[in-house]
């Protein structure tokens, strides 16, 4: 079941688009904001509100990089693997990050604290290498400072 808050936020989107289907991506992001990810069950519940089938919704969900169809950790680390960051030391940074956390890209730490995902160019190439933790952008990241950055996210 969608919670009353989720429903309210989803229905508020109807004002900005001419039909229900158009808000499905926004609606999945709303669910994800509340629950961390988008489960099969929540897709089914959403389908009822938007008059779409679960398959239709899943087709959309799986297309977009930032809709999570699996549970994720409390904090999402997005490490930029695009070209400018690659030139400026992405491989070393990534190696440090995943060995520090003990997971591979796409994985979640055993304590459920972090999920690490590769992300396409973050658009801050003059400050490469870059990564984001939740909504915070970290630029000119020194691999030696990784532990310090992660410490800020409990």
């Amino acid at each position, binding site marked *: 079941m969608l919670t009353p808050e989720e429903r309210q936020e989803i229905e508020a989107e109807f004002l900005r688009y*001419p039909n229900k289907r158009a808000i499905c991506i926004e609606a999945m992001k709303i669910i994800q904001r509340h629950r961390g990810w988008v489960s099969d069950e929540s897709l089914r519940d959403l389908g009822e509100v938007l008059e779409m089938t679960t398959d239709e919704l899943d087709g959309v969900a799986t297309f977009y990089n930032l809709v999570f169809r699996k549970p994720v950790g409390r904090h999402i680390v997005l490490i930029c693997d695009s070209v400018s960051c690659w*030139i400026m030391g992405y491989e070393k940074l990534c190696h440090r990050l995943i060995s520090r956390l003990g997971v591979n890209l796409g994985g979640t730490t055993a304590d459920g604290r972090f999920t690490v995902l590769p992300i396409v160019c*973050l*658009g801050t190439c003059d400050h490469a290498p870059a990564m984001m933790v939740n909504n915070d952008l970290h630029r000119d990241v020194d691999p030696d400072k990784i532990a310090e950055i992660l410490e800020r996210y409990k």
Partner: protein
Amino acid sequence: MEKPLTRNIPSNGDGPLPLKAYEKAGGYESVRSALRMTPAAITDLVTKSKLRGRGGAGFSTGMKWSFVPMGKDAPHPKYLIANADEMEPGTFKDRLLLEGDPHQLIEGMIVAAYAIQADIAYVFLRAEYTLAAQRLSKAIAEAYASHYLGKNILGSGYSFEIYLHISAGRYMCGEETGLLNALEGKRANPRSKPPFPPVSGLWGKPTIIQNVETLCNVPHIVNHGPEWFTSLSLTADGGTKLYGASGKVKRPGLWELPLGTTIREILEEHAGGMRDGVKLRGLLPGGASTDFLTEQHLDVRMDFREVQKAGSRLGTGTMIVLDDHTCPVGMVWNLEHFFSQESCGWCTPCWSGLNWAERILRALEEGRGQAGDLEKLEFQTRFNAPGHTFCALAPGAVEPLQSALKYFHADFEQHIREHRCPWR
């Protein structure tokens, strides 16, 4: 040197001008002027200004607007979309405009919307631009409160709404018909053209899609006229350009300069040249989907025609620099990995071909290259040439590949011969 696009952007990283300060600096003047003009007169000004799209394709902005059906029989609602889905690797220019001066974008959108008599606009923003989302939301609310947006704008009888749409992330959303599908709540596959969006776009209605930087130029054209705008440029097209450089240069960054500034000036004067100990080997002049240029092209002017004559494209105008301590094969592998992953899977040459190219490049980097690999890569560049695919993703994807095979052929051969990457 005039810098209309960045004049209000604080260089110390402070937040953008709030509405009152923006107005005091002449902000929203162009909306007042535009509302006293006919829509056709504005489109005419923009055409005469020789403004070309800043998102990569470089189409004439005024000409695009002239395709929109006008008059009382025109279909409504008509839509305007600001493409703020900046995801081209190596490109970081719209972020500056969005974070640094959101009112300038809104002002440009109102004037552009009035010129095509649009009713509704969406700003299509990538999700990772969280600061831009926050600042833009605030600026949109301020513009509504001061009657620059909404019903009966400044008592003119013209009404126009702007909504912020935050994407869920996919490079294909930057392609204009993919973007339309994303806004309609679908997978961002491209649509076949014709019909073109100015005639049949979002929900089948006339739609103009412009890059952020393009729209930000519009208020200045209305305020100062097309002659002034063309005089800003050193070449045949109008205006300034946000140029950028990333990679191992001394001062990576962004600079607003006259359109047609040479690569040498951008690289040597503004970016400070290469870092100590490394040499220039090549550069992608306008993002990941442009052909490599090399040292012999340093005096090429960064405008639409000159870069094309040199065998590449201006693209987004933000260059990615390859140095001699970085493997060109590895760099191209990184690029093709991106394009292969971001391919929407709609047409075969793209999803299959780019994946194949990516695997060969990976094999070369891991010392598993074989005789015949380079011919297979060359085949892919032809297989994905313009006209063979549904949209511009794959043709763009093979641009750096085909030019790397030309300029760095010996490096590719060395990978095969020595069964290793010499840089690893």
